[in-house]
């Protein structure tokens, strides 16, 4: 084991991804007395179900004739509550390093928020990849990203006394317009149309700021940026009438929603097959002992990218995880219906 300092989190299992597969794996591990920390880049649980189709009905969850994406997520959260998993939202797992041996694996994970986890077992439940901001096709924008072009605000102070341009018409664009306006030197909101898909009170607050001359609103799109060494000096606006206007600015924030990118999973030394992680179908373990992959991210012959597959995979992975975490304990097969031991864990006995 490496040195552990107070800021580090030690746990049995880290689950990467809080989609349905990751969530149900918490349950299966919990029945086996295994504690979990679960990390997701999104601000909430549910993965694709809550991000892409919260209101849509799902018809093929066994025993639930119909449930929405959001409803299923809520049910899973309720189901795993007795096991008290610790959630770390808004954090992306960046590195995964192996420290232990084949028989006694151990791992160290770090997130983009600077947290460090030490775990005996890692479950990769990364689905279609991490949800990341969409980056607009503005030439050379990459050289400004993280310096003067941002897709999220990490430090408000960085926007103080700056000329800020925000692109978009959704909640993120409007929330940051309202939050940054008081500290920015100037703020221009650029959107393709004069309609907004955002909370009505944010829309009216923004419109008040425009009416009072506190911010500018422009109909059109940003097509080019100018500056040097990562520092923006201006952005070119093409208005809907085809007129080009130069907006002087030092900060630009585009808000075009999220897209799924495989992301850091590709850098962890796991075998990959067309962006999927091959596993066996007995334990759903990867080529690396102690690292399992469940849900949409894994691949094996016959794989179906369905929620129910992820549930089954999580249950079997948990059995093998138990052997790593409690090498001396024998695993008894038990039913939740009849085992008082399991019912005690579930808080129902």
């Amino acid at each position, binding site marked *: 084991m490496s040195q552990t300092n107070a800021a580090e989190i030690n746990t049995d299992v880290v689950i990467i991804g809080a989609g349905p597969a990751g969530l149900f794996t918490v349950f299966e591990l919990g029945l086996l007395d295994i504690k979990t920390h679960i990390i997701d880049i999104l601000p909430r649980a549910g993965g694709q179900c809550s991000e892409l189709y919260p209101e849509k009905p799902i018809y093929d969850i066994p025993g639930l004739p119909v449930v929405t994406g959001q409803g299923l997520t809520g049910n899973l959260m309720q189901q795993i509550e007795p096991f008290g998993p610790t959630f770390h939202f808004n954090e992306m797992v960046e590195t995964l390093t192996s420290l232990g041996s084949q028989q006694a694996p151990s791992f160290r994970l770090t997130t983009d928020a600077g947290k460090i986890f030490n775990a005996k077992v890692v479950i990769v439940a990364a689905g279609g990849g991490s949800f990341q901001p969409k980056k607009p096709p503005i030439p050379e924008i990459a050289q400004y990203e993280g310096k003067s072009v941002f897709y999220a605000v990490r430090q408000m102070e960085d926007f103080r006394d700056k000329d800020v341009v925000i692109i978009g018409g959704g909640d993120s664009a409007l929330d940051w317009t309202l939050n940054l306006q008081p500290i920015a030197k100037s703020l221009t909101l650029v959107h393709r149309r004069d*309609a907004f898909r955002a909370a009505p009170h944010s829309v009216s607050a923004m419109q008040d700021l425009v009416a009072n001359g506190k911010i500018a609103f422009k109909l059109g799109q940003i097509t080019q940026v100018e500056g040097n060494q990562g520092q923006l000096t201006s952005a070119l606006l093409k208005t809907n009438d085809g007129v080009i206007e130069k907006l002087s600015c030092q900060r630009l924030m585009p808000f075009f*929603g999220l897209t799924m990118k495989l992301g850091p999973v590709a850098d962890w030394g796991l075998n990959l097959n067309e962006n999927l992680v091959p596993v066996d179908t007995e334990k759903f373990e990867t080529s690396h002992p102690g690292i399992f992959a469940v849900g949409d991210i894994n691949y094996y012959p016959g794989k179906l990218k369905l929620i129910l597959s992820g549930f089954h995979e999580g249950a079997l992975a948990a059995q093998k995880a138990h052997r790593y975490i409690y090498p001396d304990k024998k695993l008894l097969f038990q039913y939740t219906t009849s085992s008082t031991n399991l019912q005690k864990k579930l808080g129902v006995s």
Partner: protein
Amino acid sequence: MVKINFRDTAAYYGAEPGGGAPTKVKITFVDSHDQPRTVEGEVGSTVMETARRNDIPEIAAECGGACACATCHVYVDSAWSEKTGKASQMEEDMLDFAFDVQPNSRLCCQITVRPELDGLIVKTPSQQG
């Protein structure tokens, strides 16, 4: 970009939608390098599904047709824009998350293939996600 194939439940299970006598129409996808690809689309399915089944590039369709991702953005050829019709309110809202949106922009998961669309031409943008 992670490609997600066939999100419609029927296709998950390998069944073809429609069931009855299939009616096919021709749809041409012109990519951002002006390369056209003409494929057969089934009446009742969507233009997005037609693209995915035929491995048309530049259509990501991450949400599988839920009108929730804006990665199935196309420009409808001007001769066809009347027949394809206007985007719904929900689709307009989602188009806010597409890049370089033009008056002829549509999310092609929201265009259902109908016999009148035989010959439809749509152009795909260089970047979806």
